[in-house]
C-alpha cells in the first residue's frame, strides 16, 4: 500500500515548530539530493558529505528566516536548502583556490569556480546567505567578547589569523601546552554560550577562508 507522505513544506513547517520527527523525515528526503549536488560541485564524496552536514547546520541556525514565497512551497524548501549547499560549496572552492595561490604552485591555479559558472546563485540567493552569515557572525562576536582576554586572543589567532598552536605559542611566548589548554577552555565556553551546532558553523565562518 502506498501511504501518502507529507510534502517538504509540511515537514519544514513542523520542523520549524520544533518537531524532531519532521526534521528526520526532511533530512531523509533532502539529503540524497543535496549530497548529489555537492558531489557534483566539489567532485569529492568526503568533502561533499562534510558540506552536507554544514548545510544542515547552517540551515538549522537560519531556519527562523525561512519563509515560503511563491506558489510552490515544496520547491521553495528545496531551493532554500540548495542555495545554502551551493554557497557552502562555492566558499569551499574559493578557499581551495586561495590556498593554492598561497602555496604558489605553478600549474595548480585553475579556478574550480569557472567549472561551475552556470550554477552560480542569483542575487536574491546570495542575499539569503549574507543575512545568515551576518547573523551567525554577530552572535559569535558577542560570544567572543564574553571570553577572558587570554582565551579570546588564542581563538582569534587560531581561527581568524589561521596560526597553528606552535605559531601561537611562539607569538605569545608561552608553552604550546598552555595554548592548547586556553583554546580548549575557550571553545568549551563558546560551545556553552552558542550551542555546539552554532559553534561548529561559526568556526567554519571564522576561519581564514570564512566571511567573518
Amino acid at each position, binding site marked *: 500500500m502506498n501511504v501518502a507522505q507529507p510534502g517538504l513544506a509540511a515537514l519544514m*513547517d513542523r520542523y520549524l*515548530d*520544533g*518537531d*524532531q520527527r519532521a526534521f528526520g523525515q526532511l533530512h531523509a528526503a533532502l539529503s540524497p539530493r543535496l549530497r548529489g549536488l555537492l558531489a557534483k560541485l566539489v567532485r569529492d564524496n*568526503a568533502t561533499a558529505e562534510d558540506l552536507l552536514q554544514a548545510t544542515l547546520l547552517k540551515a538549522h541556525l537560519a531556519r527562523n528566516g525561512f519563509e515560503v514565497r511563491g506558489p510552490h512551497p515544496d520547491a521553495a524548501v528545496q531551493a532554500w536548502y540548495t542555495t545554502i549547499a551551493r554557497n557552502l560549496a562555492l566558499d569551499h572552492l574559493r578557499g581551495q583556490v586561495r590556498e593554492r595561490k598561497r602555496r604558489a604552485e605553478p600549474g595548480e591555479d585553475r579556478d574550480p569556480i569557472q567549472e561551475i559558472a552556470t550554477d552560480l546563485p542569483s542575487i536574491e540567493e546570495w542575499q539569503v546567505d549574507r543575512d545568515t552569515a551576518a547573523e551567525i557572525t554577530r552572535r559569535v562576536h558577542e560570544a567572543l567578547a564574553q571570553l577572558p582576554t587570554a582565551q579570546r586572543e588564542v581563538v582569534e589567532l587560531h581561527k581568524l589569523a589561521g596560526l597553528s598552536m606552535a605559531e601561537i605559542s611562539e607569538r605569545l611566548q608561552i608553552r604550546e601546552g598552555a595554548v592548547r589548554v586556553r583554546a580548549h577552555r575557550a571553545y568549551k565556553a563558546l560551545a556553552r554560550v552558542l550551542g555546539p551546532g552554532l559553534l*561548529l558553523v561559526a568556526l567554519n565562518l571564522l576561519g581564514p577562508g570564512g566571511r567573518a
Partner: protein
Amino acid sequence: MSLDAVPLIVADLQATRRARTRHFLPALILALLVIGGLLVLAGLRPDLWQQPVGQLLAQLAVWALCLVALPAVGLGLWFPSRPLRLLLVVAAVVAAALAALGRDLWAMLGGLAMSGQGPQLDFCVSATVGAGFVLLALGVLSGAFAVRRRAGSALWVSGGLSLMALDVTIWHCPSDDLGHNLYSHLGAALLLMVLASVAGLIVHRRRRRG
C-alpha cells in the same frame, strides 16, 4: 574528520522543547491554582463522586485533554500525526458533551424534549466565561498563543482553556436539567471558545509580526 549534524540539531530541538516546558510549567501551575481557587470559592457540587461513572470519567478525560494534551499540541511540545490530531479533536468534543450532559446526551440525540429553559445569562454562563477570561489572560501573558508559527496552534490553546472553564462549571453546578446543561454549560463554553479563538488568533498575528 566528518561532522554529523543530525545529533547536534536533534539536541538543539530537544533543548528548545525543554526550554518551552520550563517556560510554560509556571503558567500551568497558575492555571491549576486558578481552577482550584474558583472551585474552592464557588464550591464543589455535592454529588461530584456520586455521578454516573461514565460521566465522571468523561469529566476526568476533559481535565486530561485541557490541561495536558491540547496545550501540549498548541505549545509545540507534542507533535501528533494528522489522524491523531483529528482523534484528539473528536475526543475533546465527545468528552465535553458527555461530561456536561452525561446520559442526557443520548436522550437528546434520541429526540427527547428538553425543559423549557432556553439560552439565558445565568450564574453558570457568567462563571464559565469569567473563569475562561482569567485563564485566557494567563494564556496571553505567558505567550502561549504565539509559540508556534502556524496560527492554528492558537486554536489548540483556546480549546484547552475553554474546556478548563467548562469542567470548572460542571464540577460546581449539580444541575441535571438538560436545557440548563446544554445552554449554560456547553453553550457558554462554546461561546468562550469562539471568543478565546478570536483573541488567540489576534495575539498570534501581532506577536509573530512583532
